[in-house]
C-alpha cells in the first residue's frame, strides 16, 4: 500500500498578536510540524506496520519547510516531497489544495492520502476535501477510528453531528483524521542518524502538469484578507447578589446561546 501524508510547517506557537496598525507582531519562535498532522502521520505509520507498504510525506512551503520532512523521516517515513516555488506564495485554501494535488500527481500513485484535521495557523480544516476534489477521489473527513484496512478499501469510523458512522471507502481515497486517533510517536534518534543524508525531492511549478501560473499562489486564490485585528477579549466581570439569581442565570445562559429558550 502506498500512502501519502500532507504535512505543514507552522509557527511554534499560536500566541501571535496584532499591533494597533493591524499588523502581525513577529513572535520569533521556532517553527514546527502542525500538531494535527502528527496524528495523520501516526495513522499512516500504524497502517504501514500492519500492511507493509510505503509512507511518503508532502509539504508546500519555503525551503526551510524541509525540517518537517526530516522530522517525518525520524518517525519512520520513507520519502519526502517539498513543493517550493515563489509563485506558490500567497495561496489561500483553494490554491494550496490545488498545488498539493498537483504535487501528489508528481509524487506517485497513492492508494491513500491522509491529512490532519486542520492546521494551528489557518484553522480551516478544508484543504483535505478540496484536494480530494482536485484529485477526483472520494474523501472521508473527521475519521476517529480505523476499523480495518482491507486490500482494496478502508473501514473507518467518522464523527457526524449526532452519530458515529462506520463507513467503508475504496482506494484510492483521502481521509482527514481527528486528533487522538493514535498517540503520535516521538522522533527516533536512531532514525535521525540513519536518515541524516536521505534525499528530499523538491518540486516547483515547472515540474507540474498544469504550469498555468494563474492557478497558483495569490493569483489562484479567490479569497482576500482585507484586514487582521485582535479578537475582543471576554472581560466581563459581573457580581450578582440578591433574589432570583437562578432566573437571571437562566436568562444569561439563553442570551449566550448555551440554552435554547423554548417559546
Amino acid at each position: 500500500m502506498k500512502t501519502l501524508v500532507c504535512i505543514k510547517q507552522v509557527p511554534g506557537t499560536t500566541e501571535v498578536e496584532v499591533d494597533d496598525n493591524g499588523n502581525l507582531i513577529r513572535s520569533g519562535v521556532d517553527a514546527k510540524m502542525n500538531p494535527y498532522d502528527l496524528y495523520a502521520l501516526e495513522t499512516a505509520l500504524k497502517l504501514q506496520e500492519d500492511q507493509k507498504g510505503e509512507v511518503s510525506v508532502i509539504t508546500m512551503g519555503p525551503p526551510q519547510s524541509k525540517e518537517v520532512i526530516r522530522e517525518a523521516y525520524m518517525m519512520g517515513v520513507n520519502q519526502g516531497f517539498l513543493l517550493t516555488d515563489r509563485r506558490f506564495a500567497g495561496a489561500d485554501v483553494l490554491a494550496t489544495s490545488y498545488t498539493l494535488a498537483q504535487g501528489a500527481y508528481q509524487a506517485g500513485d497513492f492508494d491513500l492520502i491522509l491529512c490532519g484535521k486542520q492546521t494551528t495557523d489557518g484553522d480551516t480544516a478544508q484543504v483535505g476535501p478540496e484536494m480530494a476534489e482536485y484529485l477526483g477521489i472520494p474523501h472521508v473527513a473527521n475519521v476517529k477510528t480505523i476499523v480495518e484496512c482491507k486490500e482494496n478499501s478502508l473501514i473507518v469510523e467518522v464523527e457526524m453531528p449526532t452519530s458515529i458512522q462506520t463507513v467503508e471507502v475504496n482506494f484510492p481515497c483521502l481521509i482527514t483524521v481527528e486528533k487522538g486517533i493514535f498517540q503520535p510517536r516521538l522522533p527516533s534518534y536512531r532514525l535521525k542518524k540513519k536518515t541524516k543524508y536521505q534525499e528530499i525531492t523538491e518540486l516547483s511549478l515547472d515540474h507540474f502538469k498544469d504550469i498555468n501560473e494563474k492557478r497558483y499562489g495569490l493569483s489562484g486564490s479567490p479569497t482576500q484578507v482585507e484586514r487582521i485585528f485582535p479578537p475582543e477579549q471576554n472581560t466581563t466581570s459581573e457580581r450578582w447578589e440578591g433574589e432570583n439569581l437562578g432566573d437571571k442565570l437562566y436568562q444569561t445562559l439563553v442570551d449566550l446561546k448555551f440554552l435554547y429558550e423554548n417559546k
Partner: protein
Amino acid sequence: MAKIIVNQEKIKDIDEAIKLCPFDAIEWNEKEREVGITAACKVCMICVNKGPEGAFELEEDDIYIDKSQWKGVAVYVDHDEGQVHPVTHELIGKARELADKIGHPVYAVFIGSDIQKQAEDLRYYGVDEVFVYDNPAFQDFTIEPYTAAFSDFIDKVSPSTVLVGATPLGRSLAPRVAARFKTGLTADCTILDMKEDTDLVQIRPAFGGNIMAQICTPKHRPQFATVRYKIMDAAQRLDKAVGKVTNCEPPKNLASAIRVLDSKAKEIEEDIADAEVIVVAGRAIKKEEDLEMIHMLAKELGGKVAVTRPLIEAGWGDPKTQIGLSGRTVRPKLMITCGVSGSVQFKAGMTNSDYVFAINKDPNAEIFQVAHYGIIGDVYDVIPELLAKMKKSEEVMA
C-alpha cells in the same frame, strides 16, 4: 500573476526591509545580489504598507466577473437522517438579514431521502425557495452524490452566497463543492456582513483565536462560508408558511466509492478535557445525593460533571474528573462552578475557559477572581431555581 514586486532602488536599509515580514518571506538573494520574496509570502501586505515608500508593490491580475448574474443567499440544510440540525435555522436567520441588504432571495438546498415534510417545515422560517433533492441515494451522507446534487443546485440557481453549517458534515461537503466551482471558501466565520456590491464580508478567527481576519471573495461566485453552531441568532418560526418548495431532478450519476455500514448514536465524551460545557461540584455540596442536581444541570446543558478535591476525598467523585494543574486542564466554552472555593490548583487548571459562572455563598471566595459572572448565593437556592426554569420552558414547549 499577482505577487509582491520589489523595487530594489527604494530600499535603503536591507536588514530593516528583511525584518518587515512576519513570515520571514523577505530575504537577501546572494546570487542575484538583491532583496527577494520567497514562497513563504502570504501576501499579507505588511511590507507594502509598512516598508519604505514604493519599495514593495502588489501587482494584481485582472479578473472580471458579472456579479449581477449571481443572485440569492443559499443555506445548506444540515441534517442527520432527515432530522434538521438547528444550525440550519441559525443560518436561515443570518441569510435573511444578509439578503435583505441587497434585495436578494433566501434559498435553502435540502439533499436527503424522504424529506418532503421537513422541507415544507422550512417554509415557516422565511425561506423564499427550498430546493429539494429527495432520492433514496441520499439516504446516507456520502460525499460524491451529495457534492453532485449540491453542484447541480448551483449550476441551476447561481446563488451569490452559500452558507453551510460548520458541522462535521458541512466541513466535509462545503470545501468539496467550493473546489468544484474553483471559488473561495471561508471556514468558521463568526461575523458575516454584506457589502452593497454583494461581496460577503467574512470574519473568522485564526491562530487558535489569537487573531481575527476579515476576508472577502471579490472576484468569484458563489462565495462560500461555513459558520459554527450557536454563533448566529436562529430565525423565528412564523405562524404561516411562506415561499415554496421546488423538487429537483437529481443528477444522473449518484455512484459512490463509500458505503455506510453502520450508524450509532454518539456517546457523550467521557473525558472532561475536551468537554465544551463543564459543571463543577465543590465543597458546598453537603451530601452525595445532592450531586443529582449537578448531574441534571450538566445534562440539560449537554456538558460534563467535574468535582473538586474535597468531594473526591469524600469518595463522591472520580479522580479522573478533578480539574487542576496536576490533574486535568480544561478549556470549556462554558463552566459553571457550584460551591467551589477556587484553590490555586483548581484555578490553574481552568483559566482558559471562555465563560465562567461561579456560584458561591462566600463573597470573598477565590473563585470570583477568575469568574466572568460571580453569583453570590447558595447553590441550594440557585441551581434548583435554574432547573425549575429550564423545566418550565420544556413544559411550555410540550
